[in-house]
């Protein structure tokens, strides 16, 4: 089994998007719960990861330059990640294809975790 991080990228810097109705929020929560639960049910979840917040986020650049937020130079930013364990990258991609992120205008980046002894 190999481990892959699924990194969620989005361009809407809100958490959660305020225009959603309570019913839509509920639906969003349910689809995330079912997606994550489905991965875990196949024993393919290596790490439940984290959501990454917007408030109180800063970017630190050389020369004591501190700016607000993660979104200074990029239009997209990362708002969370999980780690899956699959036989190869193809299965990780299949999992990513069902990620609720994709239905809210976001993207999922699939990246292998590099083991400490892997210098490739």
């Amino acid at each position, binding site marked *: 089994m190999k481990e892959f991080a699924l990194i969620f990228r989005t361009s809407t810097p809100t958490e959660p998007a305020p225009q959603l109705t309570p019913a839509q929020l509920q639906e969003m929560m349910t689809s995330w719960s*079912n997606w*994550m639960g489905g991965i*875990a*049910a196949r024993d393919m*979840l290596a790490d439940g990861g984290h959501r990454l917040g917007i408030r109180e986020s800063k970017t630190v650049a050389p020369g004591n330059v501190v700016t607000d937020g993660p979104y200074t130079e990029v239009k997209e930013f990362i708002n969370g990640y999980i780690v899956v364990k699959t036989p190869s990258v193809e299965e990780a991609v299949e999992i990513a294809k069902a990620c609720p992120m994709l239905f809210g205008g976001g993207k999922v980046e699939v990246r292998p975790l590099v083991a400490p002894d892997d210098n490739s």
Partner: protein
Amino acid sequence: MDLIPDLYRKEYGKMVTVLCSRFGMAYMDIAEDIVSDTFLSAAETWGMKGVPSNPVAWLYAVARNNALNYLKHDKVFEKRVRKDLIQGGERSFEMDIDLSGQNITDSQLQMLFAICHPSIPVEAQVSMALRVLCGFTIDEIAQALLTSKGNINKRLFRAKEKLRAEEVEIAFPEGGAISARLDTVLVYLYLLFNEGYYSASVDKVLRKDFCLEAMRLTYLLLGHPPTGKPKVYALMALMCFQASRFDARIDDSGELVLYEEQDTSRWDQELIDRGSHFFVQASGRGEISKYHVEAAIAWWHTHQVAEQEKWENILRLYNQLLILEYSPIAALNRAYAFFRVYGKEKAIVEAEGLQLTGNLFYHSLLGELYTGVDREKARQHFVQALALAGSEAERAVLEKKLSNN
């Protein structure tokens, strides 16, 4: 008269534990012999002279005297135990045997922690605790765990050897170690409960006793501040909710009654209320263990609300449980909840993705899901499940489904 078997069940474990914690783990056999002798004297004396007014006090007094006699007169015991005790700084030969309620409780908790030592295989832990802490006979343990007496004896022998070899002390682990060991203890107690709850053994009374013993020991943990943690309250709540359906899930002929077909008036409301009480105490302290999630799932099962609401919540909780920790049974239960919320076609996709071929519940679930969707596939899965079923009760349920397919 069932007085002696009843007392044996209730008191044997307590007496062995107290003596053993006094003598040291290496002398468990001697502790067991002393207690067995005590019951033998009880059978003889009570048969001739009648039952004393306080049989438990009588047993304790005789066990205490037998133990002190052993200390004074038994050569082997004198050489080994007394020497060890003296080396351990004990000056008094007239050592006391404290059979007070508090010491019984402490000794039982300490023994529980000792038995859950990481060097003991979990199967052996179960047998050992059933024998030494709960006082079940070898016959009863073998019957409930569906194995032979020889096997149980072997497990007990190996566990004792291990405890001796590792020089495990009958004491609470020091400081931080107690909370690390507590997790093993909880796993063990839940396992013991499930042995009773899900055992395929036909002896319903015995199975219920296993559940009650697991609950009694969990309750002891709650009364001891270092172990009265939120997750322990959550486990206690879980056990109460599950046990509330004990009578409803087995009919008078010993057959399993599926959840959907249970007579809800046979659910034990008092246990449900007790469970809710423990669950409140488990909550709001910032800790969510898998026992919290499982207790919440069990709570929804004990409540009669709209089906859609119930199963949506159960599915969400199974998702949460699996994210915390994978287990095949949780994955299968999740697939069932998925069926209840989203229907068979979608649940079949989820279930087949689990890849648990060779698992009884995997095949019986897929048989169920394919029923009314694909008759041949339903039949194949039920046949595979039938080949894997271990008990008459399980086979009966599957055969009924197969013939209705």
